[in-house]
């Protein structure tokens, strides 16, 4: 110890500017402190010296020279117990007892002074502010060449961020990945400071802070945080592009950036609890619930235990507010709560198999219960037990289905980014509102609806929402709004996408359709029918081919996707007020609501989503037209007749359409009548793949097991219609 003190006192430091010396000194102080037997007064002095040195390092000291003298004085007092401050390298050392109490208390006073100084000094520097570049000083760096290179380099570095963020999404604990994201922001911020690029500097500064919190584990890497970083990356890229075009470098932060900065700040302020980590209930609040503690007292003790480092439970017991038994009971409950929210990962194939099997179970059960022999048994106990069995299988079905359900939230949230991207590209201002994002949907469906959603929202922004100028001129809020909502209705999920844009122009749609030969008589179409024309392949009323939506590939693709999911899409629009898409999708793709029809000796299933109506017609409604084949007149519409039996090689019970049953289906703008023998019933069926051999079978989309255990084929209505159209050409 003497050796250390000797080194310390004999001028390892040249002066307040000698950082290397100060560093050495700090190391010696650490060593001194680590030695056994250092007395409390010595430790107090060490701490005091350390604080002053730190303030010197950080240039927070208001009077470095005076502080420097104080350090010398204090070090001297360590070696020379009389406290006269004289620095001498010789003489024996007697430390602990001889440090006079007065000198310690004096030191403490000084320490307080120092604290006050440091705090008031630091207050101006810390917090959200940061050294702002002073324009004049950096004018020499306003070199266009440098600026150009910066933009290029920054963009290059930023492009890696998305990849790294995706890595973080799957592995939030990956510090190296956080670092890799942190670094570009950090570097960009550094250079932006030099180049006096205020917006870029400020934005990267905030994101850097956010990532720094994540790096040090203060902030959990959540989806929403990842979103924020991604959005920031895009804004930053945008700002860089502006620079490239020579527009950037505003002296003031634009409202858009400002708004985003606020968001980032508030995000770091009220950081969300990590959703993947079960929320731990505080022992205190459990004790309050148990009536052991009062709310205020719990807060008091929490405060106290924070400052003295005791665990909350210990503190409560120490203070005599709860018995050890009560605390341990609360702790147990806390543990238990966590256990109930734990989850396991399961291979989705297993889950799919389970759901299929449960479907089979339900069907097998109904086969047993509908068995005529069993139904003959008039036994009350049997009936009661059957009821019980029914309830249990229904519950199993519900639970197994729910295991595959996920909230639609994630899909919706991806749209935020899309709306922003597209708005920017098409120079619109658009906000996205979401309703019912907690609505659950089969995870298999989630992937399937993503593309159609993207398409529709892209269209809404690109074609629906007007430019801010046009909106202002029409007395509307310059910022357009797109609302996406999800809702579960019966066995369906209903997704609405609404914009408050210009609405569809029925007149122009008719003109275009006429021009393109899609329709022949525009007057026959009411507005609603005209709107539906936009689902026609190759239809686009937008005269300009935009970067965003292109031309022609659009709503027809959406309609096809939705129909493939056995869903339906409708459109409504009010000129000048906006357009709404109404999508109705089955909750799951594994089960459909089917109409069972008899065709000859076999039964077939027609998905009810494809059916418009089923009816019987009179003999007069049937006629044939040269070149057009058999037609049926249903009310005022004339529809082609499709004989299902001829496609499935069945010998029908009824060859004449007026004896059989007609199923009206629509495809595009056209309606068709499918001829079957009769309706057998309606049932939810589990769709079974027919295996690779029959996968491509036209007109058939799968098979299902009916209530009596027999197998029926599911008719692919679209496929049948296209077969019909091909044949009639």
């Amino acid at each position, binding site marked *: 110890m003497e050796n250390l003190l000797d080194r310390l006192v004999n001028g390892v430091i040249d002066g307040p500017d000698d950082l290397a010396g100060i560093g050495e000194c700090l190391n010696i102080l650490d060593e001194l402190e680590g030695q056994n037997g250092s007395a409390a007064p010595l430790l107090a002095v060490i701490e005091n010296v350390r604080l002053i040195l730190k303030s010197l390092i950080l240039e927070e000291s208001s009077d470095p020279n005076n502080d420097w003298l104080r350090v010398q004085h204090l070090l001297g007092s360590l070696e020379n117990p009389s406290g006269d401050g004289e620095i001498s390298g010789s003489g024996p050392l007697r430390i602990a007892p001889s440090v006079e109490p007065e000198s310690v208390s004096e030191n403490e006073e000084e320490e307080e002074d120092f604290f006050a100084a440091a705090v008031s000094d630091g207050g101006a520097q810390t917090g959200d502010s940061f050294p702002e570049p002073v324009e004049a000083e950096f004018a020499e760096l306003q070199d266009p060449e440098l600026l150009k*290179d910066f933009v290029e*380099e*920054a963009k290059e570095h930023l492009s890696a961020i998305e990849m790294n963020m995706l890595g973080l999404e799957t592995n939030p604990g990956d510090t190296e990945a956080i670092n890799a994201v942190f670094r570009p922001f*950090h570097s960009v*911020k550094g250079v932006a400071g*030099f180049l006096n690029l205020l917006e870029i500097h400020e934005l990267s500064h905030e994101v850097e802070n956010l990532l*720094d919190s994540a790096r040090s584990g203060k902030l959990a890497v959540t989806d929403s945080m990842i979103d924020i970083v991604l959005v920031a990356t895009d804004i930053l890229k945008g700002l860089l592009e502006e620079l490239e075009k020579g527009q950037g470098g505003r002296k003031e932060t634009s409202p858009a950036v400002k708004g985003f900065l606020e968001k980032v700040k508030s995000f770091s302020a009220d950081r969300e609890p990590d959703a993947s980590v079960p929320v731990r209930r505080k022992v205190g609040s459990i004790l309050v619930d148990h009536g052991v503690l009062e709310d205020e007292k719990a807060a008091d003790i929490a405060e106290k235990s924070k400052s003295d480092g005791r665990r909350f439970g210990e503190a409560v017991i120490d203070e005599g507010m709860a018995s050890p038994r009560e605390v341990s009971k609360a702790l147990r409950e806390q543990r238990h709560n966590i256990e109930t929210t734990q989850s396991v990962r399961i291979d989705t194939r297993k889950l799919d198999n389970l759901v299929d099997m449960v479907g089979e179970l339900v069907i097998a059960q109904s086969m047993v219960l509908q068995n005529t022999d069993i139904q003959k048994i008039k036994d009350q106990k049997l009936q009661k037990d059957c009821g019980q069995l029914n309830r249990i299988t229904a519950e199993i079905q519900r639970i197994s289905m729910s295991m595959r359900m996920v909230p639609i939230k994630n899909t919706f949230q991806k749209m935020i980014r899309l709306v922003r991207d597209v708005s920017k590209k098409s120079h619109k201002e658009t906000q996205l509102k979401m309703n019912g994002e907690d609505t659950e949907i089969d995870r298999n469906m989630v992937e399937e609806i993503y593309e159609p959603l993207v398409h529709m929202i892209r269209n809404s922004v690109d074609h629906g929402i007007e430019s801010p100028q046009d909106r202002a001129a029409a007395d509307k809020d310059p910022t357009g709004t797109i609302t996406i909502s999800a809702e579960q209705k019966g066995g369906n999920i209903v997704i609405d996408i609404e914009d408050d844009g210009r609405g569809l122009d029925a007149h122009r749609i008719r003109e275009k359709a006429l021009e393109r030969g899609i329709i022949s008589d525009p007057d026959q179409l009411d507005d609603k029918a005209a709107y539906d024309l936009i689902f026609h392949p190759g239809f686009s009323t937008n005269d300009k081919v935009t970067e965003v939506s292109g031309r022609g590939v659009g709503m027809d693709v959406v309609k096809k996707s939705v129909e493939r999911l056995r869903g339906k899409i409708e459109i409504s629009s009010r000129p000048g007020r906006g357009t709404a898409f109404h999508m109705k999708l089955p909750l799951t793709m594994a089960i459909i609501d089917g109409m069972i029809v008899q065709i000859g000796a076999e039964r077939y299933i027609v998905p009810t989503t494809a059916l418009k109506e089923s009816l019987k017609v009179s003999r007069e409604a049937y006629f044939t037209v040269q070149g057009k084949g058999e037609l049926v007149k249903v009310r005022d519409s004339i529809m082609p007749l499709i004989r299902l039996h001829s496609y499935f090689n069945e010998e029908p019970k009824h060859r004449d359409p007026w004896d059989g049953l007609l199923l009206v289906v629509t495809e595009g703008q056209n309606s068709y009548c499918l001829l079957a023998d009769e309706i057998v019933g309606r049932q939810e069926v589990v769709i079974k793949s027919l295996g690779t051999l029959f996968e491509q079978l036209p007109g058939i989309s799968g098979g299902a097991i009916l209530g009596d255990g027999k197998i029926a084929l599911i008719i692919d209505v679209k496929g049948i219609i296209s077969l019909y159209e091909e044949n009639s050409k």
Partner: protein
Amino acid sequence: MAYKDLTVLVVDDFVTMRRIVRKILRDLGFENIIEAEDGLAAMEVLKGTKIDLVVSDWNMPRMTGLELLKEVRGSEKIKDMPFLMVTAEAQKENIVEAVKARVSNYIVKPFTAATLEEKLVKIIPR
């Protein structure tokens, strides 16, 4: 020794940043400036070239400025090398950590030629 006779090693992973530091150093009269893109590259340079001063960024991939500093201070031949740490993380603990690792001084981004000179005066042996 005049600045023009000194060889400076500028370490930063961001090319633009290195160019900025280079420009400022030139403004101060430095003529021999060598660049390295991170700590590892800097160590390579230091092994083969006589360097009088290191100006290094803190946050870099592969080897950070702090790690580089520790390497330098741990190598007998160059342990007294004037080492200026460039930092934007005005986070106190970080700088103290560098000071404990015997950094000669540090400078906070963004800085001017004048601020840099102030620091250089303190760390270049007269």
